[in-house]
């Protein structure tokens, strides 16, 4: 044995334990990792921004006495019947199939009680959701599962889904474990197969076709419904401009933190951009076209709190959408279920194998024994509470910035804690006048 001291064991940053575990998993199974949720990376996000608040030069509003409005109109450009929501926090599209029927019901209950909308997903419209949603947005997806003109006419808005933040350029996936009789019937598929949704729409290609597709949808629905176009965070400036050109009433922009029911981990973590980088680009496109506030912008992907809502709106969004946060409010990944998560080889907060249909919370499953555990009335109440809290938080910040409506928040109210955040958001680095990338610096 040498008398010299040994070099202490040192783990590689490049080949970390997580990386090595994935290499071993891939070697053992021969298949890429599939999971639900959005990016788990540490990304530049709203946490990198701060509000400045009022000062001598800015006049605050009294927190409990002076009004700070929260309502939003969506679809005012062309639709005969635009949507009016009490709060600017909407529920993002999540499919029946990915979610259980009771979970969809809870989303409708909670959203309606809070005065906002919910959205269907890649499996068609369920009675649970329509029946409990005062305002329901109907997604028009490449797969067209469950698509029919009757549901198109009984929705309140139509969302043409071009992309999704978790997987811009990718289609959907619902593995056989969740293709129950009911899901199979709604999707015209055999029970138990791995369902793959197309990544492109079957009957249009490019913005010129999309414009004609939107004409068709408007004709079928008597020009009544607002038409949203949902894009993933890929090329937000150009995609927003093209969506406007195609005739959108509303653009929905989803960053890479936005969740999915199931897709490849490599896709989730390596394709697309964080929402912070996307919003200013989309707003710029709208401003350049003279359409900011005329075509409304809804942003999603990692919205968690009223602070996130306020920051998104200060950057120019008209409203936000939540998906993952809504599921957590319903009870997903609750530490109270830790023992059951442990049996699945995971832990509360990290559970993301939603595609396996074994969710002990009864939310991302089609197993009757599991989804019957979930109480849609209680779930709806929890979601309503959460939405109300987010709204109160956003109002608190807006009043502190002297705004009597959330829409009056503006980039001038913000500064950034990091150079990356400042560059992406287009606001000054805290304590400086420096906006990286502006004026050649």
């Amino acid at each position, binding site marked *: 044995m040498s008398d010299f001291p040994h070099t202490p064991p040192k783990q590689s940053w490049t080949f970390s334990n997580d990386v090595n575990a994935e290499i071993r998993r891939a070697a053992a199974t021969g298949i890429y990792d599939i999971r639900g949720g959005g990016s788990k990376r540490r990304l530049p996000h709203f946490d990198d921004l701060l509000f400045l608040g009022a000062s001598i030069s800015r006049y605050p509003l009294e927190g409990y006495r002076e009004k700070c409005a929260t309502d939003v109109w969506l679809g005012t450009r062309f639709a005969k019947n635009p949507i009016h929501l009490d709060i600017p926090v909407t529920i993002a599209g999540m499919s029946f199939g990915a979610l259980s029927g009771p979970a969809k019901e809870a989303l409708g209950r909670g959203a309606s009680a809070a005065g906002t909308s919910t959205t269907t997903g890649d499996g068609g419209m369920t009675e649970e959701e329509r029946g409990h949603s005062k305002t329901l947005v109907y997604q028009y997806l490449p*797969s067209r599962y469950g698509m029919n003109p009757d549901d198109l006419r009984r929705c309140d808005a139509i969302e043409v889904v071009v992309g999704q933040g978790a997987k811009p350029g990718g289609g959907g996936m619902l593995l056989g474990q969740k293709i129950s009789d009911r899901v199979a019937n709604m999707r015209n598929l055999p029970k138990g197969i791995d369902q793959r949704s197309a990544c492109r729409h*079957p*009957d*249009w290609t490019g913005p010129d076709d999309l414009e004609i*597709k939107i004409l*068709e949808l408007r*004709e079928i*629905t008597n020009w009544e419904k607002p038409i949203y176009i949902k894009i993933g965070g890929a090329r937000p400036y150009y995609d927003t401009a093209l969506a406007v050109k195609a005739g959108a009433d509303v653009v929905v922009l989803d960053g890479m933190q936005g969740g999915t029911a199931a897709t490849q981990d490599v896709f989730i973590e390596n394709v697309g951009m964080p929402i912070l980088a996307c919003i200013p680009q989309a707003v710029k496109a709208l401003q350049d076209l003279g359409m900011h506030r005329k075509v409304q912008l809804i942003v999603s992907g990692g919205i968690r709190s009223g602070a996130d809502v306020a920051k998104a709106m200060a950057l120019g969004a008209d409203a936000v959408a939540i998906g993952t946060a809504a599921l957590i409010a319903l009870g997903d990944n609750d530490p109270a279920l830790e023992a059951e998560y442990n049996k699945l080889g995971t832990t509360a907060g990290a559970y993301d194998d939603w595609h396996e249909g074994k969710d002990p919370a009864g939310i991302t499953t089609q197993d009757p024994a599991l989804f019957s555990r979930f109480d849609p009335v209680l779930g709806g109440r929890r979601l309503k509470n959460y939405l109300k809290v987010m709204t109160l938080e956003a109002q608190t910040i807006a009043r502190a910035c002297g705004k009597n409506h959330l829409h009056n928040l503006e980039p001038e109210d913000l500064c950034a804690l990091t150079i990356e955040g400042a560059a992406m958001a287009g606001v000054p680095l805290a304590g400086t006048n420096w906006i990286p990338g502006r004026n050649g610096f």
Partner: protein
Amino acid sequence: MQTFDLEAEGLRALNSSLHALKGATNMTAWEVINPKGAHAIAAGVDAPVDITVRGSTGYYCAGMNKQATIRIKGSAGPGVAENMMSGTVIIDGDASQYAGATGRGGLLVIKGNASSRCGISMKGIDIVVHGNIGHMSCFMAQSGTMVVLGDAGDALGDSLYEARLFVRGSVKSLGADCIEKEMRPEHLALLADLLKRGEADGKARPEEFKRYGSARKLYNFNIDNAEAY
């Protein structure tokens, strides 16, 4: 017969009038003149009426049709009868790409040729094409029946689910998981019925067709089939 001059009265007026027919109506026959390639003609109709379009149409003619019989006395642009629910659409000429895309029911008859992606993602519709169909037709087709009296282009039935495909002529290539299958008596009977309803019973006999369907090897992921994905 109600005659509607599309050029003079406009698309919105036409579709509003046709949508107003939902439910009981005495106006069972409509004629649309001067279509001049307009888009979304007779889209979203939900009534058992006969509509004849005298000329060629643009995109999405008869889109999402329910119950109506729509005859196009010309050729049809992309996405004709897309997502049709029921009823019948008959095109005297050719059809552009995506004809009958995602159709869930009813019958689409194309008396000329159909371009690429005919019957893409079909979900229950029956399609009879008197001529040829282009590449990637019946991609991800889920259910329903495609009958082609002529030839099929590349990658027929790629990633096919449970749709039934019958082709009388040549198939340039089959897509992933699409194979030729045995023709049984029930298939001959199905073909005879569709040829008759598709106004093609004097043009071909069921025995002249080959049947194609899903090998069902891609229904659940198997690493041994990775080259097909």
